[in-house]
């Protein structure tokens, strides 16, 4: 228990609660359970993407192509739905996930087999995937009246007083908690990021582990592609433009070390929630729009400053002192 209170997750949780209470003083009703559920639902996509990014960052890589991947799969499912309204939603979601996995795997292959630095690979695929949206859509929008009712209704459907989108997010968090703490692959992510050299000697395939991280991140981006387009009921080329930076920011706020091998699922979720709360709070807090961006940026820096690495965290393979 005392260990938890000292952990960075506890500090972040306290900061999150303080933030919510601060907003409550400016706009009463923000901390009401119903509104917090709404904020959680609104942040679901960011949480899911941040979890995918966490795996990639744990292995000392970075994936900047998630938002483009999301936009492309979103556009493809919207176009399929507009052209063939008969395809059931579950099939469209499967297509979205598969397409996302494919794009994530492409990143992974380039990093694994060609040994290109991940930031270069995903900076390239960021523009490639975004460019393909122009090619498949010809720059046209898919609008809400062209989408079928069931396509738009699925993420909104209420189940036990929470929208399905929030439940998908909760399920993803649970799956990640198990993956990261209870499976050999989860340990491999930490080992590869903590000490790639030693990982090889323990029989972990560094390239393959990174490939798996990229593939999982891609699949989740694909899933979010459907969720995003169905939620905002519009698909266009610029969907989620610049969102990749929000995802990385959420991870960094959550204490996922950019140097790899350090970070938790709880941290990533809290980091995303922190950013999501700011995004939802600024419109109601009566802050001048001219200050909003500066406030978002300052919050990120302050959160990271509080989150400075003090103890090594979960070390699978120790690095030799230099």
């Amino acid at each position, binding site marked *: 228990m005392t260990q938890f209170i000292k952990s960075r997750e506890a500090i972040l949780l306290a900061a999150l609660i303080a933030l919510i209470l601060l907003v409550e003083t400016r706009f009463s009703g923000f901390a009401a359970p119903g509104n917090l559920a709404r904020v959680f639902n609104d942040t679901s996509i960011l949480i899911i993407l941040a979890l995918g990014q966490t795996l990639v960052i744990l292995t000392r890589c970075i994936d900047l192509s998630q938002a483009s991947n999301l936009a492309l799969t979103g556009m493809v499912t919207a176009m399929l739905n507009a052209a063939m309204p008969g395809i059931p939603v579950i099939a469209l979601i499967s297509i979205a996930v598969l397409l996302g996995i494919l794009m994530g795997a492409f990143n992974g292959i380039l990093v694994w087999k060609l040994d290109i630095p991940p930031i270069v690979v995903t900076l390239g695929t960021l523009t490639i995937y975004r460019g393909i949206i122009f090619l498949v859509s010809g720059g046209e929008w898919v609008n809400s009246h062209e989408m079928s009712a069931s396509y738009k209704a699925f993420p909104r459907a209420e189940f036990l007083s929470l929208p399905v989108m929030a439940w998908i997010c909760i399920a993803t968090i649970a799956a990640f908690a198990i993956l990261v703490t209870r499976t050999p692959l989860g340990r491999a992510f930490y080992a590869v990021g903590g000490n790639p050299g030693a990982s090889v000697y323990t029989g972990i395939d560094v390239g393959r582990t990174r490939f798996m991280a990229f593939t999982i991140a891609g699949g989740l981006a694909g899933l979010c592609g459907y969720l995003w387009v169905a939620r905002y009921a519009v698909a266009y080329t*610029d969907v989620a*433009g610049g969102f990749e930076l929000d995802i990385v920011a959420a991870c960094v706020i959550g204490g996922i070390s950019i140097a790899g091998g350090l970070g938790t699922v709880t941290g990533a979720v809290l980091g995303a929630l922190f950013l999501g709360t700011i995004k939802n709070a600024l419109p109601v807090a009566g802050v001048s729009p001219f200050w909003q961006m500066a406030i978002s940026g300052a919050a990120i820096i302050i959160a990271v400053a509080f989150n400075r690495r003090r103890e090594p965290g979960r070390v699978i393979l120790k690095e030799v002192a230099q």
Partner: protein
Amino acid sequence: MSITRRIAIATGLTAALMGTTAMAQDNVRIALVAKSLGNGFFEAAARGAEEAAEELGNTEIIYTGPTSTTAEGQIEVINSLIAQRVDAIAISANDPDAVVPALQKAMQRGITVISWDSGVAPEGREMHLAPSSDELIGATIIKLAADQLPEGGKVAVLSATSTSTNQNTWIEEMKSNMDQYPDIELVATVYGDDLADKSYRETQGLLQSYPDLDAIIAPTSVGIVAAAQAVQDAGKVGEVNVTGLGLPSEMAGAIESGASESFAIWNPVDLGYATAMLAHNLATDAATAEPGAEIGMGRMGTATLDDDNQAAMSEPFTYDASNIDEFKSVF
């Protein structure tokens, strides 16, 4: 690779390049620069410009723009157009001042530069074609909201970015028309940055901050769609009317659901058409841009330039349930 082969390839390349230049000189090449690619409004304008090009003959439209709505992106596009030696650049600017130096460079190279839709500062262009006069737009958007509120009520504005030239002008004009509607109160102006998710969130914020809000005026095509969706999701259809400027194809769903009673827009096809006509007339020296000049716009009539070399095309047109089906397949 041997020296001779290199020379052969280089010669071939040069010949190919010269070939394209020679071919291009036959045509009047007009570059239509959008705020960003992939926006239905500009796609429709490009179709109008193509229509003008067909009518004119010997005219080539180069439809281009950055992939995101930034002035930096447009400057890159302008520089590449200068390198391609186009005859005219017609730009809808993301920032009125930032693009001026690049456009001045283009004018020094003998390229005709005009702005349309969203203007450039006078020193950076020969003339500006506003889709409609700013006064008319400002008056239209508040009238759209007020017509549905005979008893008066509270309205809020959802704009694009806080630095967008045309948005701010329209909102100012709208405010100056508000004395005609004494019972209408403007409670807030928020900025959705022309991003679907931010506009959606800002609308949710408005609905929370002002539970008795009656109308949201969004003079931007991304914002109005997002606002209509947010109102629908909040179950406030019938309570909050979303109106402003939007495209019929994008707003058809909102009209159908009742989240929006009516909205307005000038016809972007006509705007692209008129822009191409003006650019052609100026590039071929058939007309000169100077205060008081009357320049032909084909089937759209003539544009009369004011003291700042600005002209307005026509007034915005209102779309509602009665005519949306007719127009949603057009643009």
